């Protein structure tokens, strides 16, 4: 009876120890799992941060390009507008009607050259390559009177 009672106690003790051991093992497993998840999350968060940073840098670079292209195009728009303004000023400064009456031959030559020049401007804008002669022009008398900025790259107008 006494032996049976002791055996029961040992069995109970073994069950308790086993239960505690199992609980500890489960707890250990649980914490290890948690640590693994946290470590994975931290690594993923780091990766996401790096990706976001890279995307931001990329957007900044794109914006830089947008700014560069905008400035470049604005400058070209300005040059194109100046051509129109310059022609308008030429007409405003010279009474073409009076000049044509006084020197029809001379005005005829001038407007023939201007017509040729404007047509050449269209040709150049359509992709026609510049001639050697056009490239080497440095004097106003030989420069294109309408679009020297595109027809004569070596001609610098005196302001």
């Amino acid at each position, binding site marked *: 009876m006494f032996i049976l009672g002791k055996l029961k106690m040992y069995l109970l003790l073994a069950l308790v120890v086993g239960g505690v051991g199992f609980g500890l093992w489960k707890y250990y497993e649980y914490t290890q799992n948690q640590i693994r998840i946290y470590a994975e999350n931290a690594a993923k968060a780091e990766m996401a941060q790096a990706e976001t940073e890279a995307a931001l840098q990329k957007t900044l670079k794109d914006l830089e390009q947008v700014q560069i292209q905008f400035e470049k195009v604005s400058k070209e728009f300005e040059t194109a507008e100046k051509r129109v303004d310059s022609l308008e000023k030429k007409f405003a400064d010279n009474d073409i009607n009076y000049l044509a009456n006084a020197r029809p031959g001379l005005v005829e030559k001038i407007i023939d050259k*201007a017509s040729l020049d404007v047509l050449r401007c269209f*040709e150049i804008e359509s992709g026609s390559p510049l001639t050697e002669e056009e490239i080497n022009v440095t004097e106003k008398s030989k420069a294109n009177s309408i679009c020297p900025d595109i027809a004569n790259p070596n001609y610098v107008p005196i302001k």
Partner: protein
Amino acid sequence: MLILTTFLLSSCAQTPRQLEYTAKPIDRPDLILPKTEELEMRQVDWIIITPENAEEVFTSLKTSDQPISLFALNSDNYTTLSMNMAEILQLVSQQKAVIVAYEDYYIIVDKQVLEHNEELKNKEEDSGNALTNLFK
């Protein structure tokens, strides 16, 4: 007999193959467009007629043996025509500048996108290795 059948049946079973799927962007095909034609403009000769030189001009025109008709503009209309031409040229130049800017922008940006993706790929590979190393 039962055990033998079980063994025979279980030997037919196999672990299903794990499918792997990765989405990959398809490269955008290059835009191929016909080239615009280079202009070859025809020369225009102007004739200025004033009350003083009208007779002389008409006499000279008569020598060409062709019926004479002139399409005339007074100085104001000539100025208008010239300004219109100048403005058309301005528009052509602006359009050209815009097209060149688009072209430049997309070429540069495409290059940057490729570099960026390459960089990302390298980073992902690095962090993948780091993760693997963490649990070694």
